[in-house]
């Protein structure tokens, strides 16, 4: 792992366009925690690493739960997961759904063409429509409060422009409620700080395509 990691405190090893790293930033900011952000070229390595007092935690949703459980809702810090076990199970279900259905389909929108891309487009839009239905009339997936599923999904927002262009989608038109939810989330300091410029993300995607020899 990285050299000179501090014995005490929080370090987030991440890559600025990584939606999984963005989840970590939002969570740390929401809790008002002091942390050091270190830019790493994650390359093929999947996902950010949170180092707390020298110990690493991997996998973004596991990192979210770790942060939530280590700094629970005292001193005004919000809780990402609700208290009720059934509501928690639902939140975990939808976060897991996002990982299963949005991640790869989204990537395939710019990594593939033809039939593979068409399939990715279908899965991507259907999955987001399902999530939009799950959001319903609530301000956040967590209900009145911004929570676990909100963090799990809003991290993709900077990539929406890239998906729109690559996949010839029209997310604004097809998913109005979801786009309104994105804007609502972006009003939060934690989210606006964490989300990179969508145009920079698009340029990054073009670099990645060259690196992988796509197109």
């Amino acid at each position, binding site marked *: 792992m990285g050299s000179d990691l501090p014995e005490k405190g929080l370090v987030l090893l991440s890559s600025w366009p990584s939606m999984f790293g963005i989840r970590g930033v939002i969570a740390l900011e929401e809790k008002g925690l002091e942390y050091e952000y270190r830019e790493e070229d994650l390359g093929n390595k999947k996902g950010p690493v949170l180092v*707390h007092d020298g110990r690493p935690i991997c996998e973004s949703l596991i990192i979210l739960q770790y942060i939530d459980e280590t700094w629970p809702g005292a001193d005004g810090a919000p809780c990402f997961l609700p208290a009720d076990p059934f509501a928690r199970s639902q939140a975990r279900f939808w976060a897991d759904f996002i990982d299963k259905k949005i991640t790869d389909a989204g990537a395939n929108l710019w990594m593939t063409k033809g039939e593979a891309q068409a399939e990715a487009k279908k899965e991507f839009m259907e999955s987001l429509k399902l999530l939009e239905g799950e959001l319903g009339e609530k301000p956040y997936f967590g209900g009145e409060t911004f929570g676990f599923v909100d963090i799990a999904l809003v991290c993709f927002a900077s990539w929406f422009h890239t998906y729109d262009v690559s996949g010839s989608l029209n997310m604004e038109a097809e998913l109005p409620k979801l786009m309104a939810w994105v804007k609502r989330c972006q009003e939060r300091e934690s989210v606006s700080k964490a989300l990179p410029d969508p145009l920079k993300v698009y340029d990054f995607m073009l670099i990645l395509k060259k690196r992988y020899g796509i197109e």
Partner: protein
Amino acid sequence: MAESEDVKVLGAWMSPFVMRARIALNLKKVDYEFIAETMHPKSELLLKSNPVYKKIPVLFHKGNPICESLIIVQYIDETWTSVHPILPADPYDRAIARFWAAYIDDTWNPEVRKYSMANTDEERAVVAEKTFAGVQLLEEAFQTCGKGGNWFGGDALGYLDIALGSYLAWIRVTEKMSGLKILDGDKFPQLTAWADRFCAEEAVKGVMPETDKLLEFAAAMIARMKAASSAK
């Protein structure tokens, strides 16, 4: 025994994922009704209660359906809190347990399953190598997580024990079908001893499928899958 609060598990005898739910309920001493899923075709109940994935297990509690086996196990742990904690108490230990459970489901088990579908000796060798590399990692994880105890969970059977242990019958079937010794007592002494311990547990015994019965089922399933893939 805890009062029956209308707890049901929709599942099937051969599914390791269904086993997880049942082991967790058994550890918590919760009575439940087991509903055997018809599978082909999928029942109305399954389609209605798990419309997203249409997969077993589904746990029903107070009329609410909960899906995805590891989410179900966490739900059970958070609902029946006075008996046998399943997730570790410490947040860091929980993160490690969750990490390895995800590794088993997302990386290791899919690799092991490739063995039966491999067509050449070369393909089988690659799968075998990756399988053993994974078992080695899990042998090390056992020592780290278990902290000298008999279980991944330390002194008591926990989340990661359930996550891996639920695959044991299928691992034994794969061993029989492939001739590979996956849980090799010489190479992986801790895991091999743990596996026997797990299968002997009261909460596990009644829901672990018999290897021979599962072998028969697996052979038929693989034959169907191979026929389907060659028909494409």
